[in-house]
Structure formats: C-alpha cells, structure tokens
C-alpha cells in the first residue's frame, strides 16, 4: 500500500508547474479573455513540445506510453494555471475515445497527430438543455453520414476532428469520428461565462463520418469514457481550487482592516479552513480516482463519481469564497479571482452536473453493496 505519487511523478509535477508559471502566467489567460481568440495557440504548441498531449498515447502511435498518473498531474497543473487550451477536449475525451474504441487503422491514422498536437480534436455529446442521457440523443449516423445538432461543443471552432455521440437508424449508440472542415458541417460560436474557452453549436447536415469500431460501442461505453474524463477533470478542478485557496490565504495575510490582517478574523480564517477541508477531501478522493483509472479497477465508476462530486464542491466553494475574501477588488475585472470563478462553474457542468454524478455515485454504491 502506498498512497502517494512516485518521486518521478512528483518531479513531473514540479516541472509542469514551473513550465506553466513561465508560459501560462495569469496574463496568458487574461489575454484570451480580453481578446478575440478562444485559446492560446502559442501555448498549445509549447505544451505539445513538452509532449503532454502524448502522455497516455501508446508508443507505437507516437505517444509516450505513460500512465494516467502522469496525465492527472498535468491536469492538476493546467487547472492551477486556468490554461486557455483545448486540452480536456482533445486529450481526456477525444484521444481517450480513440484509444479505447478505435480500430487499429483509426488509431494509426489519428493518434500520431493528436500526440504532437497538430490535430486538435473534441467531443460532442450534449444537444438540448437538461440532462443528456441515452434517450435524449437525437443526432443520427446513417450510411457514413451525420445528421443533427450538437451544442455546446467545447473548442469546436479550433478542432479538426470531433468524436460525436450519435445513434444509428436502429437506435444503437455510436461514437463517430468526423472531420470538421467539410461543407456539411457548420458552426455557430456560443458565448459562455468562461470565454477563455471557446464553445459552439455544430450542425451536421450529412457530414462524412466513421464509427469508432475497434470494439462494440454502447451507452455504457460513453459512460466509461465520461468516468475516465471525470477523474482527469477532477484533478483540473482540484488544481484550480487549490490556487484559489492559496490566493485567498495570501490576500488574507496581507490585507489589513481594523488594525490587523483580515486573516486573523475567524470569519475569514474559518472560511479558509473550510475551503481547505473541502480541497483536502477532494484531493484524497482524486487520489483514489486516479488509482482506479490507472489500474483499470472495477471501482472506477464509484471512484470517478466520488472524485467528481468532491471536486465540483471544492472548486465552486474555493472560487466563490476567494472573491469574497478579497472583498471589493475580488469582483473587479482587473483581479484574477474571476478566472477561477468562471472556469470552476464551466468545469462543474462539462460532463454533467453535481446532481447527475451524485446519482451515479449512489447507483454504484448500490451495485457494490448488492455485490458484497
């Protein structure tokens, strides 16, 4: 039994943190928030040069063949930096989908350029407002073409490839890979409250696409993919939550009111301790989550839901109360508190809401109990 990352993994974390401090300081996120771009392409290239997109891609497809421990470490650091990148779309979702469900040919075709970052891919699941479920999917895949509308799709406008959840004519769930640069694909940009990440609505009007068909795909395959992405996203949320807490603590130590640091008032210090408690529980649950992911444990569904719920709760609280601790300056455009606030809410809804994952969590608890 050993509940800590290895020395090498901890070194990777340090390296990743140093890299992002240099190349993705708050000014980078701010530039995307203030500008027209929906991501930072220079940063994307630099991250590609570090090999991060290649982390879990097998070596025969140009990847590094590392484990999900390494990917989780990178996710945490990207979360800390609130990086304006399509990393989660391309890596946690699209790349993972191809690795899990692609044919040999499909892997050989797409993974190498995903590993280098030359291809940005994304994942299209949601259609209408409210919970996405097997029955809510209306997009159709028939005779090699896609028909329907997906929204919101993260990073759709900068991606070349989208893995789309659709249904065949006989209502079987399909994961379809579709190149985005076709006349039969059109996109409308969608503004979200976190415009340091781009989103769009994608219309498929008979777009050429192919099924990921290395293994039979069902709705359970989609859920498995989401479970895996949920663990990695939890690490991203955790990184964000921790940096929000650190900022709040720093400010509370340095800002004076009534002749003493505001961090000496229990109203503030106990608020910060409460954030610490949530972050710590989220971290410990994320440890179990990444272990379950990396070891392909049967406990992954429960571990993922637990990590996800804990991470949502920690990151929303931390991002809200960081602003509150800062007082007036906290809700200005000029201060960085806003980055965490925007991104935390976005991440809490990508992949489905807290309620959705609470529900899944209990389903797996019931399953475990009845199995025991």
């Amino acid at each position, binding site marked *: 039994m050993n509940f800590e990352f290895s020395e090498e993994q901890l070194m990777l974390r340090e390296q990743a943190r140093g890299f992002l401090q240099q190349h993705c300081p708050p000014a980078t996120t701010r530039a995307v928030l203030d500008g027209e771009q929906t991501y930072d392409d220079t940063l994307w290239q630099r991250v590609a040069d570090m090999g991060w997109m290649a982390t879990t891609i097998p070596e025969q497809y140009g990847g590094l063949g590392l484990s999900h421990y390494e990917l989780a470490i990178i996710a945490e650091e990207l979360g800390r930096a609130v990086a304006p990148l399509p990393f989660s779309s391309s890596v946690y979702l699209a790349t993972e989908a191809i690795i899990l469900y692609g044919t040999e040919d499909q892997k050989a075709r797409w993974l190498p350029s995903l590993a280098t970052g030359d291809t940005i891919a994304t994942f299209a699941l*949601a259609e209408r407002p*409210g*919970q996405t479920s097997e029955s809510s999917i209306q997009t159709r895949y028939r005779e090699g073409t896609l028909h329907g509308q997906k929204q919101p799709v993260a990073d759709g406008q900068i991606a070349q490839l989208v893995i789309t959840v659709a249904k065949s004519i006989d209502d079987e769930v399909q994961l379809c890979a579709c190149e985005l640069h076709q006349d039969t694909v059109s996109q409308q940009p969608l*503004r979200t409250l*976190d415009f340091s990440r781009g989103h769009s609505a994608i219309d498929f009007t008979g777009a050429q696409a192919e099924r990921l068909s290395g293994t039979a795909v069902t709705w359970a395959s989609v859920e498995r993919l989401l479970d895996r992405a949920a663990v990695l996203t939890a690490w991203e949320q955790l990184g964000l939550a921790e940096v929000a807490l650190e900022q709040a603590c720093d400010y509370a130590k340095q800002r004076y009111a*009534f*002749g003493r640091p505001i961090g000496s008032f229990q109203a503030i210090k106990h608020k910060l301790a409460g954030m610490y408690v949530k972050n710590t529980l989220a971290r410990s649950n994320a440890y179990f989550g990444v272990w379950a992911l990396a070891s392909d444990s049967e406990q992954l569904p429960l571990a993922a839901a637990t990590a996800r719920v804990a991470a949502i709760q920690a990151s929303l609280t931390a991002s809200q109360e960081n602003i509150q601790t800062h007082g007036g300056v906290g809700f200005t455009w000029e201060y960085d508190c806003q980055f965490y606030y925007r991104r935390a809410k976005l991440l809490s809804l990508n992949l489905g809401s807290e309620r959705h994952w609470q529900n899944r969590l209990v389903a797996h608890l019931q399953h475990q109990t009845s199995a025991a």
Partner: protein
Amino acid sequence: MDFNDTPEEALFRNKAAQWLADNQLTDADTQGLSRLQIAKLWQKRKYDAGWACIGWDRAFGGRGASAIERVIWGQEEDRYNVPSRFFVIGQGMIGPTIMAWSTPELCERFLPTLASGEEVWCQLFSEPAGGSDLAALRTKAEPDGEDWILNGQKVWTSGAHYADFGLIVTRTDTRVPKHRGLTVFMVDMHAPGVDIKPIKQLNGDSDFNEVYFNDVRVPDSFRLGDVGQGWQVSLTTLMNERLAIGGGGGGADVTLALDIASTVDIDGRPAIEDSAVRAKIANYHVLEAGLKYNGYRALSALSRGELPGPENSIGKLVGAPKLQSIASFCMDLLEEHGPLWDDEQPLFNGVAQGSYMGAPGLRIAGGTDEIMTNIIAERVLELPQDPRADKGMPFSDIPTG
C-alpha cells in the same frame, strides 16, 4: 394581523394604480432616450403629480405618505417596467441624511431637485484602504478660509459618472481615534479636481467608479454635522441603506428555477419531478418567502414609529448568497447548457448566468456577508465586540500591513 389591505389602503392602492395606468411612459415618450434620461423623465412626471418620494414632507416635494402607503406604491409601480436604480442612493439614503443633519435652507435647496430627479446623488464612503473597515478612510479635508480643500481617493462609488452631487466622508483629524476624526460634506461632482474612472467588474459591467479628489474646494456651508461628527452622520446614511437595499432586486429566483425545471428533463421526466430538485427549490422558497414576510414585519414596525434597526441587515445577508446559490442551481438544471451566456441566443434570457456573475459583487458591496453577520451578532444579539487592535489608537498609529 392581516396580510390584506384595509379599506383605506385599498383606496390608496386604487388611486396609485389609476395614476400609473394613466401616466405610464409610452414608447413615443422614451424614443431615443438613454436609461438615465428615461428615469429622469419618469421621476419628473411623478414629482409633478406628487408621486415622487411619497414618504417625504410635502415641503420637500413628497406627500407625507405612511410606510404602508410607500409599500403599496412600490408594489403598484413595480408592475411597470420603469428604471429606478439611479435614484435609490440619493432618495433612499442621502435624502434622509440631509433631512437629519442639514439646515432648512439646504433642505429646500437640495431635496426637491433630488425628489424630482433633476439632480442625481452619489455616496462617497469607501476607499481602497477602508473597505469593511469604513472608518479607516484617508481622504483629507483641510480648512482654507471659509472653504475646505479635499484630497484623496474614493472607490466603489455607484453612479459617480452621472451624479451631480456626492455625500463624502473625509478625515479632518489624524491625531484622534479613527471614528472621531471624520467630517461629512456635500460635494459638487462637476467641481474642478474631481476625476472619475469607471471600474470594470468581473461580469463586464461598470456599475462602480474610482473617484479622485485633487484640491477640490467645498464651501463650509456644505458641511453636514459638526467637524469630527462624520461617523454619526454616516451612520444615518448606512441605517437607511439597510432599508433601501433590502433583499429583493430581481435576478435568478424561485420563479426562474421553477420555469427551468419545468422545461428541462432528467432521465426523461421533467426536472421539477426530481426530488433533489424539489428539495432545493423548497429551501430557496423558504428564504425568499421568509425575507418577504420579514420585510412586511419590518414595515409594520416602521408604521408603529420604530426606527429601522440592525436586524434589517438580514435581507442582504440572506439575499445575496441566495442569489449566487440559486443562480448556480439554475445553471445546473441546464446541465452542459448552463454556462451558455449569449444575448444572441437567449436561454431563459441569461438571467441565471448574469446573476451568477453579479452575485459576488452583491455579497460584498454595501457590507460583506461577514460584516453583516457581525452587525447581527453585536447589535442584535448584543454579543461582545471583537477585541479591537486599533481601539482608542490615534488614526496615524494604526497598523496597515
């Protein structure tokens, strides 16, 4: 106890409703006008008919209405889409302060134009060094003949960019403890040396400003209260702020949550049938209804002649975090569509998203959640004060980090 109108109240309500129906602004009236211009137009129309600041004395442009009548008027006026926020600070908070602390001459000079909307006021209290610790402010006022010269910086000033006058608290003595060295003035916002810079908030709006004072000259006759009495004068304003701000104020609420939950699905059924959704909506309703009836009770107290007390802090203390929470919840109901916030593609008009982005400011402006909680603890429950590191200390000696 009766939550319905008495016959007299019903009569008053009818009269108000009738006037509103007869005099509402038409599209032709407002064509091409800004929100501020529309607000001024409407305010003047009300003033001319005796429906502005109806609780004020007739001498100052009001109609001497009772607290209940004010509420009835407010309820009836709320049925129309009229802009009102421009006058809240001036009429709700500063007007009563002028009445309490100024001369009859100045009341006659300032109150009617305040009531008619011809002159807009702002409140210049907060400073970078003094947020929650309001009395830590540093803006200096130094005597110069019959005038005072103001130097310093204010911040979080709502409406400074369209205000004609401001109520400003300044420090006139740094050698005494902080609450004792303050003095309040009325300042002309168009005077030379007043410089206004908007602050962009995280939601993209600019409701607040930084206001710089560089050798701004104010006549001594524009002083409210004695020199050194500024803290007491400010308290009059703050006491009225509690009533003016209140708990309501639009944005995401139970009605919106019900609307969304009736529209979107969970597992193929309307979300409103989901028990977890219902439990949350019920809890929000408990807060909203509790605040509403609490407001009614405060009003009955006012009607009996009681002053608005610190217990009114509860409206903002409950209302602002509730807004943040219910906005977040409404977005959760929309699942992956929750973060969408695009005026071009309205999904429940972006109210939830706008509220979520605006709520952090509400939890801070006008007294943070923590300050409001302290007020309740110390002034309602009469619990002992925190030890005050700066108590009795000359202002100039207080640690500032």
